[in-house]
């Protein structure tokens, strides 16, 4: 930034200067902390003796700062953990001067433990897990005693045997224990083989018991046999167990360690001079009980995030084992986990994250990754796994992007992280991205989950928009001969549509080879997206009526005048027609299309038009049929721009012209095109928009109620305290009933209304899905699936609808939970007791998603 340009800035220059000066000043505590945080940034092996010396000199005066430095380093720079262990181990080694004052390492660990305990209290699982990594390295480094390490792990496996443990809690506890075992198993098994075996068995038992809802979140779907394992994706706990068992079989003595162990190069410790550190015993605290749910009164957003953890987690595999780290192998698992942790931790700064990831080879054992071409080969780097770093990174990020039902961070994070990686090293990351796209594209034909396919499309188009829309489309030309609604052709169409939205029609047209432009390819529309005002043509019926209305709207006439004019138009129409036209419908269409027409230039123009004439819209949106007509008119007007359909629907709901249920009804039944009655990605976006709108409103209403209630409780408490202070008791109304304020009453009423609406829209969606899928058993057999090359559009439409039904159940399970009985009784009444495969599957998916017996 420049400090001299622009006169407007002068005023603030002094402030800025002060800021900079303040930043420079560091207290001794901050200095020692950042010494530890920055340790290893250049070359950890070389820095080690020097930093250890500095700490020996200065640590005793500020043990808490040192321990905090370690805590931050371990939990925010997990790639440095082995070196932090080596650093602490150096401090454990007595020197001549320090012999008198005892081990600094012990004092640091004492304080570090306090931090660990506070992570435990908050159940900050990632931090807990990374601290455990640190402890296990210290166990191997002979600083921590094997007995206390084992006891710590038993505290985590104890969680797995709790009655009714939630899956989120169980999964995290299992990962903590397992990953620790992978690192310290060698030492722990020497110490007590039976106890290690017991640990593994407990984890195994837990994984077996917790897998009932696996079929619903597998990224690759086989509707005919949901429990069959699929190639290319493994459940996380399953992979952990495969790794643990492989390690256990060789007593955790891998020929070359999967972990850096720099402390093994230090001189051996004399345990009589440097005794083992015993970790205190600990209990994993119980989860705070979530009394309120998100649909009842007063719930919090927290409930949803907690629910997200309730599902098994799948890991996607795109490349062969000799190309990228195989997460089911002892050497591959830690690499995938390290990448995954870095991606999560550095979410606040994707640029730094990308830089770190591209530099990852520095933090893994030599030979883990293939050296960059031309880079000097150091000792041990020519043999080993020699994986491709960039492919490992992209595979791990995409695996996180494909997590179901939801990603941890917004999909946009993973998308822009990959963009950043490509910018950082285009020659190496570019090819990895290209290969990954081809692999994912290949999965589309083999049951790739529809929601994951949707995210893949988003990623593809957004990624291309950052790199000049350069894709080798010609390799997909042969797929244009597939049936039109085949997942691959759906992908092509959606990807091009999204690219056009981010850019413009002619630009994208130029990037596509000739065969994609042929009308029968149906890959993109011939014309650029635009409005279609049906009453523009003077030869069309109602042209004059529409023109007269348009003139009023263009002249910014008052809403009342417009309403009066519409009434006149209606009367004229009634008189002139012979009763064969639905006059109301025509009037709604003319009005809606005219409003959209004056607002067709941009999103803002649309908002202005709608906002100015809200009374007009309200006057025509008087019934469910009327609302359906309004939606239909919008779809007709924007039939060449589906983005605008989504926008118009969203704002019509926002302005309360239509209800979310109206939108759901339209998406399923009223759309009147070739796909009516089924749900494709476009229709799902509309359904999702409606459900999210209803759920979001309830969330806001609840927050408002909670806030007002808290304020009032506080007021009452204050008033009461005040009363008690007044000795004069004759005026004090002793038993004043607690009446809610008008504001709270209104908020409660709103909450009740919105909750009803939420239930209505959820119910409507479920019913529509049941209707749409009741007659679909023909595509559900294994034989039919294997014959899918011969499927026609209608078969694929049904298959896709099944995909969105699964998605509906798993994404909205936390909301559906509160109404499950009421909703399912109504929706499934028609198919109650039926043995038809489709009917059984409908009920099974529902039950599994709500954690009930299938």
């Amino acid at each position, binding site marked *: *930034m420049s400090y001299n340009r*622009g006169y*407007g*800035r002068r005023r603030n220059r002094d*402030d*800025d200067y002060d800021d900079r000066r303040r930043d420079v000043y560091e207290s001794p505590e901050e200095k020692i902390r950042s010494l530890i*945080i920055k340790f290893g940034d250049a070359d950890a092996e070389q820095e080690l003796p020097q930093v250890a010396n500095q700490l020996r000199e200065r640590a005793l005066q500020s043990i808490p700062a040192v321990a905090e430095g370690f805590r931050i380093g371990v939990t925010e*720079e997990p790639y440095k953990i082995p070196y932090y262990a080596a650093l602490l181990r150096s401090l454990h080694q007595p020197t001549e001067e320090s012999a008198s004052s005892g081990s600094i390492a012990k004092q640091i660990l004492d304080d570090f433990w306090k931090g660990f305990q506070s992570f435990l209290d908050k159940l900050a699982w990632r931090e807990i897990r990374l601290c455990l990594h640190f402890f296990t390295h210290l166990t191997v480094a002979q600083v921590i005693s094997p007995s206390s390490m084992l006891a710590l792990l038993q505290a985590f496996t104890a969680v797995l045997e709790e009655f009714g443990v939630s899956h989120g809690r169980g999964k995290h506890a299992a990962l903590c224990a397992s990953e620790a075992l992978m690192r310290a198993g060698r030492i722990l098994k020497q110490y007590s083989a039976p106890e290690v075996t017991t640990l593994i068995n407990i984890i195994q038992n837990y994984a077996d018991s917790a897998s009932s809802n696996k079929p619903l979140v597998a990224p690759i779907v086989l509707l005919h046999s949901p429990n069959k394992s699929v190639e290319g994706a493994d459940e996380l706990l399953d992979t952990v167990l495969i790794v643990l068992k492989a390690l256990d079989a060789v007593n955790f003595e891998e020929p070359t360690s999967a972990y850096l162990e720099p402390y093994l190069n230090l001189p051996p410790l004399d345990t009589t001079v440097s005794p083992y550190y015993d970790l205190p015993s600990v209990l994993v605290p119980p989860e705070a009980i979530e009394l309120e749910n998100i649909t009842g009164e007063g719930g919090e*957003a927290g409930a949803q995030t907690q629910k997200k953890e309730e599902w098994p987690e799948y890991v996607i595999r795109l490349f062969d084992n000799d190309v990228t780290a195989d997460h089911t192998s002892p050497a591959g698992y830690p690499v995938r986990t390290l990448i995954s942790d870095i991606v999560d931790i*550095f*979410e*606040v*700064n*994707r640029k*730094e994250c990308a830089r770190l990831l591209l530099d990852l080879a520095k933090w893994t054992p030599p030979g883990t990754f293939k050296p960059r071409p031309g880079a000097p080969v150091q000792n041990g780097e020519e043999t080993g796994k020699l994986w491709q770093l960039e492919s490992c990174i992209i595979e791990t990020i995409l695996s996180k992007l494909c997590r179901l039902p939801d990603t941890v961070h*917004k*999909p*946009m*994070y993973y998308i*822009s992280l990959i*963009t950043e990686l490509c910018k950082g090293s285009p020659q190496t990351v570019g090819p990895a991205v290209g290969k990954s796209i081809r692999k994912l594209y290949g999965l589309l034909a083999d049951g790739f989950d529809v929601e994951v396919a949707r995210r893949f499309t*988003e990623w593809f188009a*957004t990624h291309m*928009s*950052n790199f*000049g829309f350069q894709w080798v489309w010609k390799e997909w030309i042969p797929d244009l001969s597939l049936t039109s609604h085949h997942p691959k052709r759906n992908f092509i169409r959606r990807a091009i549509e999204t690219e056009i*939205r*981010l*850019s*413009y029609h002619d630009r994208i047209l130029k990037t596509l080879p000739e065969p994609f432009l042929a009308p029968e390819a149906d890959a993109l529309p011939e014309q650029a997206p635009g409005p279609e005002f049906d009453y523009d043509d003077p030869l069309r019926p109602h042209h004059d009526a529409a023109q007269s209305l348009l003139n009023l709207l263009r002249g910014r006439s008052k809403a009342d005048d417009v309403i009066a004019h519409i009434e006149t138009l209606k009367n004229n129409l009634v008189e002139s027609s012979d009763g064969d036209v639905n006059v109301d419908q025509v009037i709604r269409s003319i009005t809606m299309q005219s409003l959209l027409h004056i607002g067709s*230039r*941009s*999103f*803002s*123009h649309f*908002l*202005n038009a709608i*906002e100015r004439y809200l009374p007009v819209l309200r006057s025509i949106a008087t019934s469910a049929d009327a609302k359906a007509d309004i939606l239909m008119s919008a779809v007709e007007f924007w039939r060449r721009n589906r*983005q605008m359909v989504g926008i118009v629907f*969203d*704002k019509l709901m*926002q*302005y*309360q012209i239509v209800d979310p249920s109206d939108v759901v009804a339209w998406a399923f039944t009223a759309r009147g095109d070739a796909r009516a009655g089924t749900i494709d990605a476009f229709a799902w976006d509309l359904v999702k928009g409606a459900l*999210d*709108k209803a759920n*979001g*409103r309830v*969330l*806001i*209403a609840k927050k408002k109620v909670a806030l*007002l209630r808290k304020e009032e409780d506080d007021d009452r408490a204050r008033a009461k305290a005040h009363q008690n202070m007044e000795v004069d008791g004759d005026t004090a109304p002793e038993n004043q009933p607690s009446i809610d304020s*008008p*504001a709270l009453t*209104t*908020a409660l*009423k*709103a909450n009740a*209304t*919105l909750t009803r609406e939420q239930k209505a829209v959820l119910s409507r969606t479920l019913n529509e899905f049941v209707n749409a899928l009741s007659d679909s058993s023909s595509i559900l057999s294994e034989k039919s699936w294997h014959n899918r090359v011969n499927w026609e559009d209608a078969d694929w439409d049904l298959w896709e609808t099944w995909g969105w039904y699964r998605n509906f159940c798993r994404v909205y399970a936390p909301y559906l939970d509160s109404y499950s009985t009421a909703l399912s009784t109504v929706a499934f009444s028609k198919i109650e007791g039926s043995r038809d495969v489709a009917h059984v599957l409908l009920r099974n998916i529902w039950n599994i998603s709500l954690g009930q017996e299938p």
Partner: protein
Amino acid sequence: MAHVVSSLDQPSNYKDSQARVDRQKQNDLLSKSSTLYIGNLSFFTTEEQIYELFSKCGSPEEGGGVKRIIMGLDRNTRTPCGFCFVEYYTNAEALACMRYVSGTKLDERVIRCDLDLGYKEGRQFGRGKSGGQVRDEHRQDYDAGRGGWGAQAQRMEMERRREVEERYADAQDGPGAVAGGGGDWKEASGGDQTLKRGRSPDDEGDSSRAGHRMKAEDPDIEPERM
């Protein structure tokens, strides 16, 4: 987190140079802001392109989404001049854009996002001498996406331009020129009285008060940004 690296969602040194509120108040507003200033746009980029990209950071399930987009216009010609405001319903969505969208490309230009104090009347217009943004006054390079330096913009771009030029010919100034985007859900039935009561205790009142204050302190509203 953020001991090791700084977070990308911190406000930068961008500020509305004509805002008349003190630094403390500005920081306070920014920390709650749900509005973004978007810079380095091509003059040809449409609101729909902006909507498509920025809706990817929306959280409709938490009551969020793109509330409105205000296109920055040349004061004289009423054509887009390379910036806009994107207003969400929630602060978290704006922060997500700072982390994930700022510094990526839209319409093949690297765009920049900054937290903004919030749109107020007049800020949709450029503040440069010739009507556009100040940065385009003295620019030495040729930038086809921002009007080039002569009349030699590519023919393709010119065609798109004609469309764009007409689009905002009807832009108004003064109160009510820009739509609000729709407020929070309100009880529909029951007439005005319940409406008012429902509205009074929540933040809507606060923000309009803040708006009045700012306007009062800023009598000579000049167009946006230096």
